[in-house]
């Protein structure tokens, strides 16, 4: 996983609430067996018309937002399904950070697993960042994960909260599985204990 340390980039304003995972990547694009290549379908229905042509009004079809690496949105971003294709599509497009008042739980979790930083900030601050973002290329935003700060184009620093464990994994680009396997002995011990105490639970077997 690519570590996330500090990012200075164009931020795209997406002033919508309840941006669901079907909006981020419609179900018909989930039929892939790979992680990459979904970026062209990010926000497909918002981004393209029925003939597949770009809708000029959609923010990611406009300069400089085609190169945005930060997304600013309203409440409950990422609600809906558990599909990790949503963060994969964001990442494949180039988005490394989403800033919103709050996020749906599974999406929030999935971001961290893919090196995307979801930042929660109060709506009043989001409104300011949204205005900043509308200024385009002259208005690059900096995200400093170490310091836990969003730096506005005018230099103002805004602190954000993040779970220290997740922060560490993101900063170091660590794989969760390696992390967990450090507890292999404890997992073995738990399995041995429950095998005794809950021996009434059978294993799964599909009889022919």
């Amino acid at each position, binding site marked *: 996983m690519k570590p996330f340390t500090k990012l200075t980039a164009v931020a795209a304003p997406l*002033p*919508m*609430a*309840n941006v*669901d995972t*079907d*909006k981020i990547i*419609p*179900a*018909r694009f*989930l*039929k*892939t*067996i*790979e*992680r990459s290549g979904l970026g062209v379908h990010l926000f497909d*229905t918002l981004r393209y018309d*029925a003939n597949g042509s770009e809708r000029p009004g959609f923010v990611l079809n406009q300069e400089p937002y085609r190169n945005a690496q930060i997304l600013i949105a*309203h*409440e*409950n971003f990422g*609600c*809906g*399904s*558990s*599909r*990790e294709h949503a*963060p994969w599509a964001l990442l494949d497009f180039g988005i490394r950070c989403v800033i919103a008042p*709050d996020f*749906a*739980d*599974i999406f929030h*979790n*999935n971001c961290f*697993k*893919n090196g995307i930083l979801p930042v929660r900030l109060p709506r009043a601050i989001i409104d300011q960042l949204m205005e900043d973002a509308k200024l385009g290329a002259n208005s690059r935003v900096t995200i400093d994960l170490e310091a836990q700060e969003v730096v506005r184009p005018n230099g103002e620093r805004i602190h954000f909260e993040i*779970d220290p*464990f997740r922060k560490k994994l993101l900063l170091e680009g660590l794989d*969760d*599985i390696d*992390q*967990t*396997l450090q*507890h*292999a002995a*404890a*997992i073995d011990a*738990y*399995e041995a204990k*429950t095998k005794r105490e*809950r*021996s*009434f*639970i*059978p*294993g*799964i*077997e*599909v*009889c022919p």
Partner: protein
Amino acid sequence: MAKTLFDKVWDAHVVERLPDGTCVLYIDRHLVHEVTSPQAFEGLRAAGRRVRRPDATIAVVDHNVPTTDRQAGIKEADSRLQVETLERNVAAFGVPYIPLLDDRQGIVHIIGPEEGISLPGMTIVCGDSHTSTHGALGSLAFGIGTSEVEHVLATQTLLQRPAKNMNVAVEGSLPFGVTAKDIVLAIIGHIGTAGGTGHVIEYTGSAIRGLDMAGRMTVCNMSIEAGARAGMIAPDETTFEYVRGRPMAPKGEALERAIAWWRTLPSDPAAAYDKLVQIDAATIAPMVTWGTSPEAVAPITGAVPDPREVADEAKRAQMERMLEYMALRPGQKLAELAVDVVFIGSCTNGRIEDIRAAAAVARGRKVAPGVRALVVPGSGLVKRQAEAEGLDRVLTEAGFEWREAGCSMCLGMNPDKLTPGQRCASTSNRNFEGRQGPGGRTHLLSPAMAAAAAVTGRLADVRELAR
């Protein structure tokens, strides 16, 4: 200290508590399907890892599969590739698998409980948000992403922080014509799609206890639509009766010991919840959604709301966008909206009880001219049971299509799709834009209400048909 059902199941599965409060949580059951697993198996292969507990894992195909003419195979190349990839992966990693042409094949959340794979007190995960369904048994069941699927395959654990406890109490008896689906739609309408964020909802109260297992599963299924991490219902005699005799459930003396443990799981009377919501069952009517979010819901006797009455600017804009997409005008009566398609099925309402409810309305009636109505059983066994009861004939004689088990028109991922502009009365769980096919317009409702829509050709109050 007094504990909730969630606390008890959680605590029984903590392998290790890390200093910052994150837990290594043991997973009892891992359900795998073709859409969210290929990249996870790929990751295992790349890292040279194996599946730690094939005997706690089960795979099934459901999202991509056609629901007619199965013998002919899967026509769409990309769908076929996902199914074949799963088959290759389960063979290579030794994971138990229910193949497409097996009678027991079906939607992963239908067959988990049906086969006795999902049991009370367990931790259950699947790369699908509607895993919350299995919480109806008194288990902690939640959806995970593909990275976590890989994590569970490799370690049989997840790194998790405990959720907060929320109690949604539905007291009283349900009025005539009101079902589990109406309860959960009413709850979502009341607390909103983010109302449960960060929480596990425990559904309590006499109206919940009075539901059969199918109804409890319908309620827990849509917990995710209320933003909750999971939904749970305390196991009781109804639960134990349901589990008894299921193929992969404990039997005989083992079952008695299991039940003895399950009886200790319900929340202690003094247990505290972080959030409490109370709903009077008597106030719930048959519900139907009018917008593109499950919280955009109203009683069938109601009308399309007026954005001009919404003070918050962002909310007003959202409502306007919804009405535009749904092609609705403020003040239009919901019971006057003509439908093109009716879909009865999905993990929310694809169980035998749901098909019985639909057939009861359809019996002796005809699908309205110009309406296409599909009934898609949740599993091959549900289909067989319905056929044994003659429900397939009742439905086909009324003009419904009777199909093979799968996710079908719940999501536009297989051949069963809406075309742009079609209006659909659907028993599924999501009414997002394009969910049932690009440009499709979804109204969520109960199976009986869906059948009523089919025979009247419009959204209709099922209570009037019954009179």
